[in-house]
């Protein structure tokens, strides 16, 4: 637990070290007297974790099967690459990723029982639900590219996580670039 709120140091006025020290002493004294800060705040656990009592509208067999664990999948120069990257607010497969998609298309065509899940993602900028749409659009682009290269539709499924599951933390171009992606997940 943070003992004091650092935001009380108004950055426009600058941090005054003397005040900082005297406040620290005051806060420490308070802490010692009351024993408060060592006590971890409790989160009331009511209401309890809910149970699902209705499965109306369930059509997604993959989801019903529970957590389908990803498999190792094939290896090779290009086949070991499982991530396709995208430009900001775009869903076209870039030239530098075409060979990766083609390698997976060739492998999946030859192994018609192998299924893959295409997980679409977006960077953190913009609205969350719109980014779900953007991630889905990217997943669908890869799905169509694979299908056009001979992969059966039954081998392919998509899911979009939008910006909710970033691959890289941080708010810079490098992290954004790593997060705008489709992950090709080989299923067991």
């Amino acid at each position, binding site marked *: *637990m*943070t003992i*004091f*709120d650092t*935001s*009380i140091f108004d950055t426009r006025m600058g941090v*005054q070290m003397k*005040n900082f020290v005297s*406040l620290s002493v005051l806060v420490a004294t*308070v*802490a010692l007297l*009351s*024993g*408060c*800060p060592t006590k971890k*705040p409790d*989160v*009331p*656990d*009511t*209401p*309890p*974790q*809910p*149970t*699902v*009592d*209705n*499965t*109306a*509208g*369930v*059509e*997604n067999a*993959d*989801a019903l099967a*529970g957590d389908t664990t990803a498999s190792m999948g094939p290896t090779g120069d290009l086949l070991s690459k499982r991530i396709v990257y995208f430009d900001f607010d775009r869903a076209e497969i870039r030239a530098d990723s075409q060979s990766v998609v083609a390698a997976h298309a060739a492998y999946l065509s030859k192994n018609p029982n192998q299924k893959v899940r295409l997980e679409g993602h977006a960077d953190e900028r*913009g*609205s*969350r*639900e*719109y980014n*779900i*749409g953007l991630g*889905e659009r990217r*997943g*669908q682009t890869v*799905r169509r590219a694979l299908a056009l290269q001979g992969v059966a539709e039954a081998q392919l499924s*998509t*899911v*979009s*996580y939008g910006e*909710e*599951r*970033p*691959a*890289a*933390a*941080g*708010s810079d171009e490098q992290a954004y670039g790593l997060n705008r992606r489709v992950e090709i997940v080989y299923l067991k």
Partner: protein
Amino acid sequence: MKERMKQTAIRFLAACLFTAMGASPAFAQLRLTITSGVTDPIPIAIVPFSRAVPADGGLDVAQVIQRDLESTGRFKAMDRKDMVFTPTTSVEVDAAGWKQQRVDYVVVGRVSAQPDGQVRIDAELVNVLTGQRVAGPFFVGSSANLRNSAHRVADALFEKIIGVKGAFATRIAYVSVDGKPPKQTYELFVADSDGFNRTRIFSSPMPIMSPAWSPDGEWLAYVSFERRTSAVYVQHRRSGKQTMVSARAGINGAPAFSPDGKKLALTLSGSSGNLDIYLLTLATNELKRLTEDPGIDTEASFAPGDGNTIYFTSDRSGSPQVYRLTVGSTERPKRVTFQGGYNARPRVSPDGKQLAVLTQDGGSFRIGVQDLANGTVQILSKGVQEESPSFAPNGAMLIFAGRDRGHGVLQTVSIDGLTSARLDADAGEVREPVWGPFLP
């Protein structure tokens, strides 16, 4: 500066004492900091109320009221140690004396135990400049709900002074995320508008998104990826009873309750991956498609009223913009945002006159408010990456998600952009705040 520190320390001491006394089991999980206020806040003295020990559970009612009023940035409360007198009834208030101390208003009050075990708060407001005394408001409630009663007193005082009903006795829902990717824990919380009384609604190792309140404040709809793919759930806040209302193939997202609470607008994509807006009647599971466009259509938000007017985000023109549709009409949705290349996640104000959006402002994503009558847009926030605006039920404030030193925080801003405050979490990131309705 020094004064502020001292105040913070005193508040901290008070909070600790309550906790040590075991009087306040719910520690503030969100800390409120006023980041900007009006240049000329109203000077007010909120005199400590007479206590009812032990029925009041050690709660400092006057302090709760003071914190509420100050959180709006419109009031500057007098320091208690500067108070020469501490009256608890308005007849004891010497208006001339307080005027010399440069306060415009004095609030006095009493907390009393009732014969039936309830606790009553009586407050009185004195206008020091006119000498006018306003008796009331008073609120009676259980000892456990005393904090809520104090918020209701603050609501009424705010209305008497500012002319707009306060929204302190309301709740917010928000998503909290802890841990580093890819191992993160997602939690949906409901808390009082001041961050106190936090209750966990749902938690999952998979993302939780897009919480939405039912109009009566009894239910929350949200998106969970618990099953690896998205599904929309509706959960009863008090009992925890959860119902999965949509887990169709593809995307199930962006739920919004209709004004009568009987329908849910949501975004579905089907397996083809084309996101469109649908209307689900909760009692019958009847599904009606509202948009049909190859672009991304999502983030439906009902205008107040009959539930037939829905604003939503669509990139049918090439970039995300806000459109309006009428349920049951064959007319094409009408575009309503034109300023800037990115306008998304619309929310209509309670009076139906304004639209809050996430808008791109230069290189930043900020909260904008558009006047629906004349189309003028005002940018209300100053950060670089903000999102998820949500109106307070009184329409006077917006809560949204922002960042502070790379950390997800909740922020509030008044509708005129003049005052703002920040709610920091003790741990983890907080995001997607949604302001609940007025409580009955």
